[in-house]
């Protein structure tokens, strides 16, 4: 029973999909299917609520909870909640898109629900089979959703493009997983990580091949340069609520898994030493993602494309966070996820879903063009949408006092703290990039308030559901921006569980394999407290191993 309770947040999303599917069938052909959007949203929010409740803690279950191939912990709960919010917002945005606009009402909602389910499964899975299933459920639903606007050739193009490249990425992921299995004989993250880190001394080539493959596959999902080519076209061509979903849910899920896999499997102390280390690869991707995303963003004239490039550059910032693992001050070693990463993803998802959401509420009735011109004068035509768009965009840009500023502040600070000697360069690069990005974000605001539409302006859809969704996003961005304490706490807690550790159930058989069990030191290892980071006792074996390696390798290098 407790298994089901622990799995309930994810399960609820799947059940929502099934219920919506049956409701669609029962409600007959001629009903307006908008209510299904509400049902989907309520179901997904219920699953988010369940995740929060589990987090807060009941009597029976305490996180982390391990069920077979799924581990539900604070990290999972954080991302499941985030994904649920973004998924619910996207499904509300679809409500008042009528069939003339091409989104097939009845079948869209179950697909959204299932895609959300896939993303949640993706986040909580600790076994590569389950991980792949989650990835495929999410992707398969999205391929279809991207192409669901059948009147538009752009939507078809988006669907085909996303499908072909996505299938390729899935292939890479499978290859990576297969190589990992070949190298370690296991599909379970923790076991794989242990084996690889044990073998690190005599260099396991297979795991490096796997590393590259998996970074390529997940890099596609999070739209990091150079796996980003599909992003602008697909975000532009897809129906806008679906773009919101992709930019929010997929990126959050992709990053959650990327960080967890990288740190659990390859998370030794040398994680970010040198260009060929896992962190080094991530760092390269991070820097070029920021630069390319922002520079390309400047030259765009289409709002959806601008937001697409903005999402690419944000991928760069977050990758920087994943690169700078929570080593703390030099000497104090503890492999943990940079606590800025979950928080930054929160800020990014809320803002980007809000921005895409406003665009989704404009331009209907076959109005495809989302050029800057078409949003000109929005400030006069619909002050509230204009305000929401402005808040979202400025939050993406990182203007205080909005949430985006806090996100950038916390993330960059953490990156700097991780290794002040080297990382200041990358923080400077990131800050400079944020300044460059300001140009195109402000350009949107400029058009919204200070330009008159020259051509045909995009019509505005009257949609209570959509308005509710986007205004919730904007309110969250504002409120959390002013009072970020709780959210930062939450992401701190979440990041503690990002690196999967060996639970007792798994540790038991492992002991038998070891020929000579090393005696545990009597005295508990003393770890320096890093920025409020409390070390989970179950992390100690990994940390200790990381320390040993660090001590062995660092040698007498003078600081």
């Amino acid at each position: 029973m407790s298994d089901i309770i622990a799995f309930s947040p994810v399960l609820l999303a799947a059940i929502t999909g099934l219920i919506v599917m049956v409701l669609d069938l029962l409600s007959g052909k001629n009903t307006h299917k908008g209510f299904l959007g509400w049902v989907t949203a309520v179901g997904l929010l219920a699953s988010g609520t369940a995740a929060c409740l589990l987090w807060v803690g009941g009597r029976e279950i305490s996180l982390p909870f391990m069920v077979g191939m799924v581990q539900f912990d604070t990290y999972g709960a954080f991302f499941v909640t985030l994904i649920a919010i973004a998924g619910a917002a996207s499904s509300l945005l679809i409500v008042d898109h009528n069939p003339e606009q091409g989104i097939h009402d009845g079948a869209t909602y179950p697909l959204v629900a299932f895609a959300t389910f896939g993303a949640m499964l993706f986040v909580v899975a600790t076994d590569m089979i389950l991980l792949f299933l989650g990835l495929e459920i999410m992707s398969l639903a999205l391929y279809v959703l991207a192409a669901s606007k059948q009147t538009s050739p752009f939507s078809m193009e988006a669907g085909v493009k996303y499908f072909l490249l996505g299938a390729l990425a899935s292939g890479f992921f499978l290859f990576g997983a297969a190589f990992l299995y070949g190298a370690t004989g296991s599909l379970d993250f923790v076991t794989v990580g242990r084996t690889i880190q044990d073998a690190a001394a005599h260099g396991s080539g297979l795991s490096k091949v796997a590393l590259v493959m998996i970074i390529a596959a997940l890099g596609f999902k999070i739209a990091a340069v150079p796996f980003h080519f599909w992003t602008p076209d697909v975000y532009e061509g897809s129906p806008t609520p679906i773009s919101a979903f992709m930019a929010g849910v997929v990126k959050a899920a992709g990053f959650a898994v990327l960080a967890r896999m990288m740190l659990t499997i390859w998370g030794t102390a040398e994680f970010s030493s040198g260009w060929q280390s896992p962190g080094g690869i991530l760092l390269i991707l991070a820097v070029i993602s920021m630069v390319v995303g922002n520079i390309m963003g400047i030259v765009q004239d289409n709002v959806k494309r601008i937001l697409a490039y903005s999402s690419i550059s944000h991928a760069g910032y977050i990758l920087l966070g994943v690169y700078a693992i929570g080593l703390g001050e030099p000497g104090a070693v503890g492999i943990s996820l940079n606590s800025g990463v979950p928080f930054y993803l929160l800020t990014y998802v809320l803002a980007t879903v809000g921005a895409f959401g406003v665009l989704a509420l404009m331009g209907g009735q076959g109005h495809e063009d989302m050029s800057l011109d078409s949003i000109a004068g929005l400030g006069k035509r619909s002050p509230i949408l204009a305000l929401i768009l402005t808040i979202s965009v400025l939050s993406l840009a990182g203007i205080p006092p909005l949430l985006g500023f806090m996100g950038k502040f916390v993330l960059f600070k953490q990156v700097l703290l991780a290794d002040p000697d080297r990382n200041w360069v990358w923080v400077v690069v990131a800050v400079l990039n944020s300044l460059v990005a300001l140009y195109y974000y402000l350009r949107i605001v400029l058009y919204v308030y200070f330009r008159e539409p020259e051509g045909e302006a995009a019509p505005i859809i009257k949609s209570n559901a959509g308005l509710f969704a986007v205004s919730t996003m904007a309110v969250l961005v504002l409120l959390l921006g002013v009072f970020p304490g709780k959210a930062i706490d939450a992401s701190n807690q979440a990041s503690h569980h990002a690196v999967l550790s060996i639970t007792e159930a798994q540790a038991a058989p492992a002991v038998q394999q070891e020929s000579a069990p090393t005696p545990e030191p009597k005295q508990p290892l003393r770890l320096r407290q890093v920025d409020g980071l409390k070390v989970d006792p179950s992390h100690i074996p990994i940390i200790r191993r990381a320390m040993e390696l660090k001590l062995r390798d660092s040698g007498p290098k003078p600081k």
Partner: protein
Amino acid sequence: MAEQIVFYILATGVLLGALAVVVPPFARNPLHAAVALLTTFSLMAGLFVMLSAHLLAILQIVVYAGAVMILFVFAIMLLNLRKQDFSPAKITAWKILGAAAAFLIATRIAMVAGAAVSTHTAVDLSLEQYSTFGSVHDVGIALATKYLLPFEITAILLLVAVIGALVVTRRQGGLR
């Protein structure tokens, strides 16, 4: 000895078939490419048999040869693509670069994998384990116990695929 001969025959066939899927003179005709792929899949099943994974071999044939490839062939026949529908193959700088990169990566992976294989020790199975290894019974038990969750979630994956197929292929204005 006999096993090695059979292995090399099968392996050569697998590789040649896979090459024929993509290498121009043969692959110009989509149906030829499909038949080549079919050959690869079938011979791969032979390799599985040699690893005494009989069920896997049969599933390989049932799923890939029996279902996947026949749909490929079906689609090719429906489109009725003939040679003249394709522009002649051009060798561009990109293709050469791509081929070179692919070759480099493939050799690198082969070296790494070869090194990994050479350091691996064979797993000793007891006679009892060996006799049931890969049997229908064992696989069934594994699917219903350890891999029950993935097995069930696959059902949702298939459901999504079915809904997706309906959405993509529906006629405009037909379904609401």
